[in-house]
């Protein structure tokens, strides 16, 4: 991968009082790349997301997103970043299409423009016909699709998926994951996938960074098409990642 570096994290540490959450972390993400941050609960994945999003400042080190400090220049990144969260976080008083257009409205698009774009994205995530349903009328998978449409509708440079598929059942999770991957490749989106599921990382990411507390990179693996096509290599990577994460290795994998 030789694209321009969009996210640069250089020697970043984060302390919460005396608790060290991130310890001298180095990582970069290039344009168009899908990078997975893998780790168990408490590995510091969400802290890294918050640091890159600029919702908290690092205790030391430098973070650059699209060339700017995301914390100091918070507003400068408006429209460049979008997050799809673990839970759908939809506004219950808005319909599916109104939720999908939220980011566009915040970016200052007119109601008509936002509505058109939101409908287009709902169709892309296979939710046509459910535009005017309220949140309580949608299933868990449908809500997560709306959440994804809301994130993608603003056409962000970088999309963060924060355990976005982990609360869905296996089949829905897999379908949604495949849909997202297709969209990300089609629109050459840069994605940071935050997950504890090794399978998600191996099937979606170009590169996986395995984190161990306090958010230190314990292992970095590159997942090429060739690797993905070879079950024995995937099984071997799965085992290596599991060991690096501190998980017991499942020999069946």
């Amino acid at each position, binding site marked *: 991968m030789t694209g321009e570096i969009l996210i640069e994290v250089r020697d970043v540490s984060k302390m919460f009082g005396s608790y060290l959450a991130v310890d001298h972390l180095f990582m970069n993400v290039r344009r168009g790349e899908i990078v997975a941050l893998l780790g168990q609960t408490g590995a510091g994945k969400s802290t890294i997301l918050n640091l890159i*999003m600029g*919702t908290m400042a690092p205790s030391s080190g430098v973070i650059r997103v699209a060339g700017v400090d995301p914390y100091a220049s*918070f*507003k400068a*990144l*408006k*429209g460049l*970043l*979008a*997050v799809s*969260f673990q*839970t759908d*976080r939809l*506004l*219950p*008083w*808005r*319909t599916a299409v109104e939720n999908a257009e*939220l*980011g566009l*409205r*915040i*970016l200052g698009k007119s109601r008509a423009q936002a509505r058109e774009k939101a409908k287009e994205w709902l169709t892309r995530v296979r939710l046509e016909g459910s535009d005017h349903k*309220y*949140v*309580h*009328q949608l*299933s868990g998978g449908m809500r997560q699709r709306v959440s994804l449409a809301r994130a993608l509708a*603003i056409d962000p440079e970088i999309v963060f998926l924060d355990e976005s598929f982990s609360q869905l059942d296996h089949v829905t999770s897999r379908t949604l994951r495949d849909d997202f991957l297709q969209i990300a490749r089609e629109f050459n989106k840069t994605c940071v996938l935050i997950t504890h599921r090794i399978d998600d990382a191996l099937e979606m990411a170009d590169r996986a960074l395995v984190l161990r507390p306090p958010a230190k990179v314990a292992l970095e693996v590159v997942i090429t098409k060739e690797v993905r096509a070879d079950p024995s290599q995937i099984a071997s990577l799965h085992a290596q990642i599991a060991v690096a994460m501190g998980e017991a290795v499942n020999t069946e994998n």
Partner: protein
Amino acid sequence: MQTSSRSEILADHKTSIVIEDVELEREPSAAATLAKPLTRTAAPRLGPEGLRDIFATCVVVLVLLAAMEITSRFVPDYIMPSPVAVWNAAKELFFSDPYHVAVTLARLAVSVAIAMVAGVLVGLAMGIFPRVRPFLKAIVVIDTGIPALSWMLIAVFWFRNSEVRILFILLVILLPFYALNVYEGVRALPKELVDMIESFRPSRWQVLRFLILPHIVAYIFLTTKSVIGYAIRMVIFAELVASAVGIGARMNLAQSTFRIDQVLAWTFFLVILNLLLQALVNGFEKIALKWRAEASIR
């Protein structure tokens, strides 16, 4: 069966059984009753329990009327008139005094609207600006501790115009209800939603417009439903103390001329007025909160 993640159980306890918008009209078996979930999301409809409530209300009204009729036979008219006399007085007032009803209604509407706007602004300021919060909270809490009667007497001293007096009295009495409930509404905003909207890097105004204001609408309706009866009582008191027109003033006149039939007729109108206003607010609430899946406990 879907249950809302944020299902709220407010005042409505209706019993229609709805699964995925399909109402089950048959009598459920014991096993089906046990299998029913504890909560259900449904648009409440007038079911058997609603009809039972109406029936019970009718029974109570008939018992009261019978008690009035019996008592009226043993005591003078100025102590307890018969229901027929009260009914005749009500008919007379209905045609002779609609102006006073209109004045009271207008005062009520204007006062509640102004108290609502001011209370919502104070509540929002308490919720959004941490620096002013303790000061506003102190003012509101002190306000809640001052008896309504004190405000009425103070208003008589402070203001010459009776309309200003009534508006002032209702404003200072109702404002804390709105302010405190809206403040609680802002505090109850799920952090997940705040983080979500913050991820789009909105302006403060956009957070208010897209997140906070829609979220507090339910709290505004809840407050309005809670205070409407109280507001009617307060406007009547205020008119009794500080005005020559309006239902309160007419009740004062009826009392001073020993027309207890008219006092009871006005009371009857006030009960009806309260029910109509509650129904009106409920109607608006249903429209404004149509997105909400209502939950009821089995």
